[in-house]
């Protein structure tokens, strides 16, 4: 249930300013961490600004949508919704300069497949990715735990798809709307666009679903207002109705505002990102490879390290340890 979920408690925010605040904070943190010896102008030229990051992530959300649509075997809608949630949640608290969105994108979809019980193996999964598949599966598996950690292990996502089904059943039962099935295409279209906005970080899934149903109805020149006011909110009181109307209006306007970012602009940003991204998290960089090597060697190092320590600190282990005798 949404009202008691971690989604409501931790991942539903009051307004867009709050979201922007979080994103800006992490953008600035990254810049101050990595650009200590640069002045203001250099920083501006070298790093991505918060707006540039937004634009880039919007572009990658489009990529995410395309990737999921083309995915073989075709995935249920719930997986796509969950993947979008993960992607948005991840970049609320991380900068795209720290973790490249193309890597996080694939990881989000992979994790969403697991959580939504859409069973694909990693081999099947990377078959949908162009380029070096072995490298891709390495990246995904390496990032999976990081992603879960950044999501604070709040993996259950409430998507608007089931609420839509609920509303349709309810409308068919309680309303005299002729052929409600014709709303479906409008609803699907609307929900597809909703995920390109921040609506799912601001509103309850049922509110988004209702907005989708109402939008689809108005497209079909039908009016479901009486269903909302007389049936859903009959016992609720005008204040709650006002809140819902405002939410629906806001969601619909957000969807209306969706536009794909200009291509040249994004290309420039991507070039900039290639230079300024955190090389420690870039699987192609020397630093990254070296770190992986170190991590692999660490097992041995750690082992000798600890045994030496125990020799120093306790006399009992000294006696028992074979190397001491």
């Amino acid at each position, binding site marked *: *249930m949404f*009202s008691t979920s971690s989604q409501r408690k931790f991942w539903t925010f*009051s307004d867009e300013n709050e979201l922007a605040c979080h994103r800006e904070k992490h953008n600035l943190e990254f810049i101050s961490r990595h650009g200590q010896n640069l002045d203001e102008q250099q920083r501006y030229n070298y790093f991505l600004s918060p707006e540039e990051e937004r634009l880039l992530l919007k572009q990658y959300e489009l990529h995410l949508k395309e990737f999921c649509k083309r995915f073989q075997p075709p995935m249920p809608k719930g997986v796509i919704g969950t993947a979008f949630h993960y992607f948005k949640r991840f970049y609320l608290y991380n900068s795209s300069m720290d973790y490249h969105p193309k890597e996080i994108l694939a990881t989000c979809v992979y994790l969403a497949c697991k959580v939504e019980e859409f069973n694909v193996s990693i081999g099947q999964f990377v078959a949908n990715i162009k380029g070096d598949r072995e490298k891709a599966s390495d990246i995904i598996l390496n990032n999976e735990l990081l992603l879960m950690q950044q999501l604070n292990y709040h993996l259950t996502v*409430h998507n608007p798809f089931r609420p839509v089904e*609920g509303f349709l059943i*309810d409308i068919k039962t309680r309303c005299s709307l002729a052929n409600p099935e014709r709303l479906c295409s409008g609803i699907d279209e609307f929900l597809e666009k909703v995920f390109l906005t921040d609506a799912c970080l601001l509103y309850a899934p*049922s*509110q988004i679903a209702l907005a989708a149903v109402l939008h689809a109805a108005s497209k079909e020149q039908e009016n479901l207002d009486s269903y909302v006011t007389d049936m859903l*909110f009959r016992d609720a009181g005008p204040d709650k109705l006002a809140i819902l109307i405002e*939410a629906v209006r806001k969601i619909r306007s957000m969807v209306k505002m969706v536009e794909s970012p200009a291509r040249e602009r994004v290309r420039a940003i991507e070039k900039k990102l290639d230079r300024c991204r955190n090389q420690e998290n870039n699987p192609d960089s020397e630093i990254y490879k070296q770190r992986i090597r170190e991590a692999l060697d660490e097992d041995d190092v750690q082992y000798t390290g600890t045994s030496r320590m125990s020799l120093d600190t306790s006399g009992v282990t000294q006696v028992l340890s074979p190397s001491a005798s």
Partner: protein
Amino acid sequence: MDDQACPRCKTTKYRNPSLKLMVNVCGHALCESCVELLFLKGSGSCPDCNVPLRRSNFRVQLFEDSMVEKEIDIRKRILKDFNKKEEDFATLRDYNDYLEDIESIIFNLVNNIDIINTNKKIDQYKKDNKELIMKNKAKIGREELELEEILEIEKQMEDLRRTEVLRIDQEAKKQKIREKEALIDELMFADGDAKDILNTFSQSLANKQEEIVPVSVPKVTHFSSGVKFTRGSGQQPLPIIEEGPLYKYEPLAIPDRCGPDTPSIKEIISKGYLQHVRAENETEKAGGYKSTLPCLRALQDALAGLYHTS
């Protein structure tokens, strides 16, 4: 019997009275010491016919003619699989034919006639009747167990009866001695006619004999080994566990759904919500699935959170 001799070392019963002849599946005999010598490693081949044999399959020859031993072996092996009963056949004629078949198979194997084809026939039979063979085997096992139980009960009854008879015998002996003494005492000290006394005594004796009541025999429920019979005599009573205060169900507090109330399952059924949900099919019904559940869930999800305020 005296001409019994080991075909290998030529020892006879006359020269070695403790001679024991052993046979294996091929039917050729060997004396015990030859077996030990030849099958030191556990397996080897028969010196007569070169058939590979295992030492563990050697057993003491019971019949003078070792061919009989061979036949017993083969019969045992064949009957393990050819275990159909008369009930498995439609007519008596079929059953008789089947028995005839078995005999001819055994005969062929014993006398090395057409071995290849006979073995093929056995294999074919095994393949065709796999299930029936398994079933009958289990049945035979069960029947054997039943028989064993019956035997055991009979044995215990027998024991009880024997001890009972012994007891009664002793009792009667003692009684007789006592009566005799009483009679003699009476004859010695009473003043009445000796004939009368004798008469009254024989009368009371006859009365007493009628009074002996048969002792009830306790029911047998255990094998002599102490194992309980598995069937029939009912299950063991469940152990009684000391209980604390009874569990009292308290309905879960339903958290605020943050939206309008959803219809109950009853309302979902009565108000016709189910017309708009895919009905469950037979298979799903068997698994406990009902279309009311997804319907309820969809409605709950739709209505929960509608009052959400940021």
